[in-house]
């Protein structure tokens, strides 16, 4: 119903009248509202809009309100409009904040953590370097040229740029980005891999070994064009800090030139500051012989065990044979307990949220099963062309670009990974399912819950001869509580292994038998 009201002898400017009309329109049951000074022109317009107005009775000094609303409420709304002339409702509302002049930060800062969209990240990082802040650049999609420029500027100014695509760091015992809640200690790490840092860090914590710094460099830092700018500056920091007595280096495979740069940096630092033992872990690289104070490992668990040997002053050379022996025993025990469930389907599938965990799994599996494909393969020939529809043995990194366009990282939102795991676990040829569970600040608050449902759902469909293997990259102290996650997964029927590489080892061998 269309109704009008006149307020005699009252003036309000046209903006105020428009704003009040806007407010009226927001009310439930109001389909149109108009407020004007009652000039002949305005009355004409309102009449065209279907309001019945008698021109003679008004003067241009009056305000006229027109409203189209449910009849029972129209009167009340007209009354509201009159009240609002004196008490505009919008004056209580929040203001447009964009107009505020830039304010100074409320505290002295020495680090900017930047996670804005990659298109805008480089310039933001640069502006923070200009403000004499170190930078942790979580964002990806920063170009290589921009990365090089940023790292040159940082080096010149005596600052550090961690990233781009740096997901995890620990500084002075404080976890940044995706980080676990462990204790500080005598170990310093520098790593071109976020989940590599997390896996090693948690495996060290489980051995009661604390970490003071873990400097993330971003995965591209060790490419020849970037030249390990942050990696090398990071080593410098670890040597300069006298609280650190053991160093861990983590990365995917290195070029020869990068290997040389790192070893000569370590040599020169050792000459200047004295030697510190280094555990190197370049996942996917060929095994290299240990050298004095430089121990070369191929997986994160081995690395943690080498550090443990250094801390406990037991022979480093015995680490690998002992680990192999332990795994063999575990495998035999499991084989016995699982035997009654029949032989599994012929195919292995892996579902990873951590890129380097996926990489490490491939590295382990490559020695057990031939032709394991991936969307992020160690060997380019083994690329999985369609990661949504894998064939044969295949492990997928759900943090790869194809999966993260317009989505959160799977460590925050694993729903896509879980959905794929659910679907593929039902496929008849699939016998062994591998996956990771990454905990820590910033990660999904309860990843085990949905995974347990997926596993239980598979078994409920009578797929008893499926085997689910995982490990938990996390600590009991983490917000998600590793114990709770383990219970969830085990009660659903998953086999929770001690490390990512152990899970891959056992899964691969079990399938092979």
């Amino acid at each position: 119903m269309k109704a009008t009201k006149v307020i005699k002898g009252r003036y309000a400017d046209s903006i105020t009248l428009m704003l009040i009309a806007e407010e009226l329109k927001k009310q439930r049951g109001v389909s149109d509202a108009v407020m004007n000074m009652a000039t002949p022109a305005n009355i004409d317009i309102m009449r065209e809009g279907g309001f019945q107005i008698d021109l003679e009775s008004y003067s241009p000094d009056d305000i006229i309100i027109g409203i189209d609303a449910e009849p029972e409420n129209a009167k009340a709304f007209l009354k509201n409009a009159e009240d609002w002339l004196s008490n505009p409702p919008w004056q209580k509302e929040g203001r447009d904040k964009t107009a505020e002049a830039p304010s100074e930060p409320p505290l002295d800062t020495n680090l900017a953590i930047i996670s804005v969209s990659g298109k805008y990240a480089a310039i933001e990082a640069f502006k923070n370097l200009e403000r004499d802040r170190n930078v942790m650049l979580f964002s990806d999609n920063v170009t290589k040229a921009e990365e090089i420029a940023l790292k040159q500027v940082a080096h010149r100014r005596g600052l550090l740029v961690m990233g781009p695509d740096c997901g995890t760091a620990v500084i002075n015992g404080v976890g940044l980005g995706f980080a676990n809640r462990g204790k500080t200690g005598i170990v310093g790490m520098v790593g071109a891999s976020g989940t590599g840092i997390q896996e090693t860090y948690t495996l060290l914590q489980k051995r009661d070994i604390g970490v003071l710094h873990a400097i993330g460099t971003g995965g591209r830092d060790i490419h020849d064009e970037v030249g390990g700018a942050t990696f090398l500056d990071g080593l410098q920091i670890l040597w300069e800090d006298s609280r650190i007595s053991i160093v861990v280096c983590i990365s995917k495979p290195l070029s020869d030139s990068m290997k040389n740069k790192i070893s000569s940096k370590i040599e020169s630092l050792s000459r200047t500051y004295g030697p510190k033992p280094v555990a190197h872990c370049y996942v996917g690289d060929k095994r290299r012989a240990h050298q004095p104070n430089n121990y070369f490992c191929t997986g994160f668990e081995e690395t943690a065990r080498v550090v443990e040997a250094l801390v406990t002053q037991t022979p480093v050379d015995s680490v690998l044979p002992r680990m192999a022996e332990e795994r063999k025993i575990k495998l035999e025990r499991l084989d016995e307990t699982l035997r009654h469930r029949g032989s599994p389907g012929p195919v292995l599938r892996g579902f990873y949220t951590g890129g380097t965990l996926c990489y490490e799994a491939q590295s382990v599996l490559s020695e057990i099963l031939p032709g394991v494909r991936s969307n992020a393969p160690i060997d380019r020939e083994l690329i999985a062309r369609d990661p949504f529809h894998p064939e044969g043995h295949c492990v997928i990194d759900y943090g790869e670009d194809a999966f993260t366009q317009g989505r959160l990282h799977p460590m925050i939102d694993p729903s896509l990974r879980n959905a794929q795991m659910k679907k593929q676990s039902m496929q008849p040829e699939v016998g062994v399912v591998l996956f990771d569970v990454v905990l820590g600040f910033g990660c999904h608050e309860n990843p085990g819950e949905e995974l347990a449902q997926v596993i239980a759902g598979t078994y409920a469909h009578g797929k008893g001869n499926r085997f689910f293997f995982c490990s938990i990259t996390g600590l009991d102290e983490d917000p998600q509580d590793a114990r709770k996650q383990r219970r969830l997964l085990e009660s659903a029927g998953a086999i929770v292994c001690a490390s990512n590489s152990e899970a891959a080892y056992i899964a691969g061998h079990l399938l092979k038998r």
Partner: protein
Amino acid sequence: MNKESLFREGPKVANIGLERFNETLKEQGVPTYQQPWTPDHTPLSLYLRVKEVERDLVLAERIGNANRETLTRLQTSLPILHGMGLAKDVIPGLSGRMLLHAGPPITWERMSGPMRGAVTGAILYEGWAKNVEEAQGMAARGDIVFDPCHHHQAVGPMAGLISPHMPVFIVKNTAYGNMAYATMNEGFGQVLRMGAFSERVVNHLRWMRQTLYPILCRAIDTLRELDRPINLKSIMAQALHMGDEMHNRNKAGTSLFIRQIAPTLAETAEDTSKTADALRFLDSNDHFFLNLAMAGAKASLDACAGIPYSSIVQVMARNGTDFGIRLACLPDRWFTCPAAVPKVLLFPGFTQEDVNPDIGDSAIMETYGIGGFALATAPAIVQFVGGTPQDAANYTIEMYTICHSENRDYTIPALQFKGTPTGIDLLKVIRQNTTPILDTGAASKEAGRGQVGAGIVRMPSEAFIKAAQAFLDNLRT
């Protein structure tokens, strides 16, 4: 050294982006704050080049000197109302079937609804076509030459159409001798500049030419002959103290203009009832002075064209499709990008969907250092911009960060008579990641529907980024 502080004392964090990182740091007891962020579209490589120029003492001094020279010319310019004439007789290069329009160059194919509507109306006004279909057919066939007002020392609000037989004001910059031109403002409602082209619109334009123009022209000529021409700069300076910012509010400027011209209108009246009609029209049109202010700004800014090394923006304009700027050092080049869509307070019956992309040469007011840049002085219209005088002041304060200096003549009582932010410095725009804001009218997307509202619009950064690239390239040559 902040690197040592970071690794010895631990992180003290400015978190930019995902708030969850800020939250988790707080949980760990780490000093941290969430730093507000707006996207900066500037490529890092360009930003680094700007920085390089700033560090180059020789270049930086050259640019500094050129910018000071630009601001001197801008502020010593003295625009006065010199006379009137038909566009075809006074505007250089306007001839034949040519129509001038607002903003950077554009073809009929790419014109928005209101621009096409205004073109249609102008063709009908000129009598080049008998009806709408014929008029639009001519335009589509290429029978009409389109050219920006800015290529002819002219400016026009909104669609900004100037056709050969429209009367225009002639504004003279007495300090530098150059001229600028603008039409008379048509008033409110269904008007050509908003894209309306009905018979009523065209008839009103005819009335302006046949009745209003001779009346005003006689008075203006008389004042000039008596050596008492109307000083536009003086009116603008006073109006800014009376609540105008000279873009969306011209009530004070229009009143001052009427006060100054009224006695002479009476003295030169031939038909008192027509003169009375003219005065009533001026009184009914709060924006009458806008076109004069724009021509005054244009005359002043044109005196700044062609100063090598100057990084001051000399033109900002929109044609309803594109936004374009020109630089004092590269006055013949346009740097363009898609125009922004203003977020406006809508008139009854319209929605945000109806709003056409930004249109009009009136951005000359901000380029000149007033308009949206002087919002702090116009409390009466602050409700367009968010509600309180403080909101308006914040816009003005923000604009100081991208301008060369405070205006010598235009001051803001509410800011302790600080000069308005004047002279948009392209390099500051890039460095501050802040583009100019305008307070503007908004037209309906659909030709003929007219104005839909008024409000604030921030200029898109892409044109400034392109201009900065060209500016830096030009330094090398």
